[in-house]
Structure formats: C-alpha cells, structure tokens
C-alpha cells in the first residue's frame, strides 16, 4: 500500500486507517460525527496527499486542456481554479478534476483523484498538443486541506494577508514560507469555506507542524476520510467511482454546467450529442427510518427506476440522505428504497442537502 508523508504521524495521533485507492489512509480520529461537526462549525484538517497532480506545460497547454476537458479554459485567468470532467470518446467519465491556471496559455496544474492518477496521466500524455509536456507530480506533492468557517483563522497565522486567496476557487503561489513554493488554494470538498495547500514532499512535515501549531488556539480537529465523505455528500458533491465512472454518460450526472457544448470540440462531445441521457442524478431523503446506502435499489411504486450511488445518515441534518442514479423519465412520486429487503418510503429533495451561509 502507498503512504502519504503523513501516514506515520497520523497513526501516532490516533488515526484509524483503511486502504483507500491503494493508500493507507485515516478514516477517522476522534469519530466521524465529531470531525464532521468540527468542519461545519469550526475547522478541521485533512491529509489529502493521496490526490494526484499533473502539470501541463508548453505552447499547446491551453489547446490540450480544451481538448481533454469539458469545461472552457480560454477564459481562466492565472490564479484561478476551474472544475471539469475529463471524458473518453464514448462520453463516459475518465475523471473529474480541478485545473489551476498558473500561467495563462502555458502552465496548468491538474488535481486528480488518487484512484485515477496513473490512468489520468497516461490519458493526458496521450493527448498532448505540440510542444507540450505533462509531468506526474503526484508522488512529489503533499496536500493538506484546512476546512471550515474558521479555516481562515488558521491560514491567517501561517501566511501573510497578501498570500491568502480571498475568492473561492482562487489560489496564490507563496514563496519564502517553506523551502520551496507552495500553492494556497481556496477550495475544498466539504461545502464549507476552506483551503487546500499543496507543497513539495520535502516541506510536508514543516507545513503540517505549522498548521497544527496555528490550529491549536482555534480548536482545529484532525479529520479522516469518513468525515470527508459525509461532508461532501451533504454538499451533494459527486465522488468518482460512485456518482460516475467510465461507463456513465457525462450528461447523466447533473454536471452540465461544467460541460461546454459551445466549445468547437472536446473528447466525448460527439458521443454526448448523439445520445440523450437515459439517467439522471437526484437527491433522496428517507421518510421511513433507516439508511439508504450505495447500491440499494430505488423504486417508483413497484417499478425499479435506479439505485443509490452514495448515502448516509446526515450528521448535520439528522436525516437519511442519498444521491441516486435513476431513469431520466421516471415518475419521482411514490419513491421507495429497498434496504435489506424492506421497502422504505423516500422522497426526492433538491440538491445540495446542505448549503453554508455565506
């Protein structure tokens, strides 16, 4: 199993570890509910060094992005971040990614899912435009996520005001605080304000120590992947391998805002235009007691219309929430979820389940 630079220290600090995407990762420390609450109400720290990073550089960098991603990067300014899907020729999802514009037209950093890092690097490498290179920086990069409304109070103790991005989905490249440059990004996967800090592995420990020291008076809590999952689910953020995979048509997952059909072309565009979406992603809340988990079947009356892709007991709402992939034309009244042979009543609800007060 692969390890992040924080594996040892996080085990010493009481993490309960599991295999996640081939990495030995903490699923929880004090407990998922306490960690979830810390992020919703204050601030939590996640090791997300398992995430992959691919640097795309050269005169064809922008053209490469325009080809391999569904979103439009012509308009992305340096210092800004933009989410996208990356599709195969069939319109299925190779991965979902964040793209950082380091230098317009020339240099972009792509943050990808850990489970897909090697596949993504190979995919991007095979679609590079002329005089363009892709570098897989995944093993050289550590990443910590500081998430929650008080995250700014932690980050403010480590970085100067000028070095802190103030808009969501923007970032700063900071020199002089650590031995190498770091990226301070105002992004996250928790539906709260927060930051993700990318550094060279040689600075991993230095960054961790600074974050822990800065978080001491703020009540920063160590968090694991368990809370990361419940937090993103409340925010209805899709997770690769659950809401989508290579066989999921990109127009079936409710992410159309990130698919720019007005671009002349991108990989998968033709396939998407040829097929009407047969499925859709919806939010579900159980009316009866129970928890609707992944793979549970969803019914409209007696008719099976799909299945749960992610589901949990929402720590913030105290309700059983789930995202489901159902037939696009299904009647969404009279919903049931089959939980271990029992048909529990459910209803469709708007996504996201949770939205922070800005």
């Amino acid at each position, binding site marked *: 199993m692969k390890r992040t630079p924080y594996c040892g220290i996080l085990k010493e600090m009481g993490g*309960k570890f599991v295999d996640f995407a081939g990495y030995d990762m903490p*699923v*929880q420390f004090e*407990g*998922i*509910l*306490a960690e979830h609450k810390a992020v919703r109400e204050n601030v939590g720290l996640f090791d997300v060094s398992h995430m992959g990073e691919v640097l795309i550089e050269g005169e064809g960098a922008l053209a490469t992005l325009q080809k391999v991603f569904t979103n439009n990067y012509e308009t992305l300014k340096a210092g800004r971040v933009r989410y996208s899907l990356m599709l195969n020729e069939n319109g299925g999802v190779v991965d979902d990614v964040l793209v950082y514009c380091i230098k317009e037209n020339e240099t972009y950093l792509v943050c990808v899912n850990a489970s897909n890092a090697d596949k993504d690097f190979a995919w991007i490498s095979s679609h590079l435009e002329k005089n363009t290179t892709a570098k897989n920086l995944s093993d050289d990069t550590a990443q910590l996520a500081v998430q929650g409304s008080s995250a700014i109070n932690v980050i403010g103790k480590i970085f100067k005001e000028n070095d802190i991005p103030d808009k969501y989905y923007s970032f700063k490249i900071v020199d002089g605080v650590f031995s190498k440059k770091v990226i301070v990004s105002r992004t996250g996967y928790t539906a709260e304000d927060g930051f993700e800090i990318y550094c060279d592995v040689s600075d991993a420990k230095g960054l961790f120590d600074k974050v822990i020291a800065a978080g001491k008076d703020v009540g920063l809590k160590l968090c694991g992947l*368990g809370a990361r999952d*419940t937090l993103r689910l409340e925010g209805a953020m899709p997770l690769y391998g659950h809401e989508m995979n290579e066989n999921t048509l990109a127009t079936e997952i409710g992410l159309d805002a990130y698919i720019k059909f007005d671009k002349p072309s991108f990989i998968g565009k033709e396939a998407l235009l040829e097929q009407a979406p047969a499925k859709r992603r919806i939010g579900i809340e159980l009316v009866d*007691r*129970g*928890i609707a*988990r992944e793979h549970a079947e969803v019914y409209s009356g007696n008719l099976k219309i799909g299945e749960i892709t992610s589901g*949990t*007991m929402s*720590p913030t709402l105290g309700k*059983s929430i789930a995202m489901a992939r159902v037939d696009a034309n299904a009647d969404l009244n009279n919903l049931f979820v089959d939980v*271990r042979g029992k048909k529990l009543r459910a209803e469709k609800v708007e996504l996201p389940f949770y939205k922070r007060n800005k």
Partner: protein
Amino acid sequence: MEIRENLKYLESHEWVEICGNVARIGITDYAQNELGDIVFVELPAVGESVVADKEFANVESVKAVSPVNSPVSGKIIAVNGALEDAPEMINDDAFDAWFVEVEITALSDKLLDAAAYEKICK
C-alpha cells in the same frame, strides 16, 4: 476496552446477561469502538423469535451496516426502543445499552466466557 466478567459473549462481539430464563443481549464495548459512531439501530419486535447464532438486529455506523447475532434462542419479551431515538447510547455505554430481552429456550453452544472473549479482541 471494557469486558465484563459476569457476561457471556459470542465471537461476533455480542454480550448476553443471563438471569434465570431471561437473556439480555447487546453488543460489546470492543464492537462499538470498532464500529465508530452508531447512527441507526434496526430492532425486531416483541413476540418475534430469535435463533442462537443468527442475526436478529442491525447496527449502522456512519460507514457501514453490521448484523447483530443472538447468543440464545427464544422469544423476544422486551425491546429497548430508546436505542432507536438515541443510538449513540451504544457508544456511550455498550453494556448498558441492551437491545432485547429474550425468554430463553436454548443457549448458543458457542458462548465464550470473559477470558476467552478477551483473547479474540486482541
């Protein structure tokens, strides 16, 4: 981790307190700690039968569902309904948070005493 001397256990981490012909059943402190935050309990109804070593209830943590097996056979005479509204009681004190009381007709032949159970938890 707490193990109580006066109880019997199943390898699958249930405890049973036998008092005359009535058994009180729950999950162990080790089990609740392994599961993490328990957020839902699915209990059977009074009058239903349970079979030794077979599943009679489910506990759900944030991450997963786990079956709860019965250390005895018999008929359920009481259910601890408080757990449905406050499943976290199991995390707080697993030996206090009993699931059901059963009128015993037979015991599992796989019951362990505290010392034998403790070895499994290592």
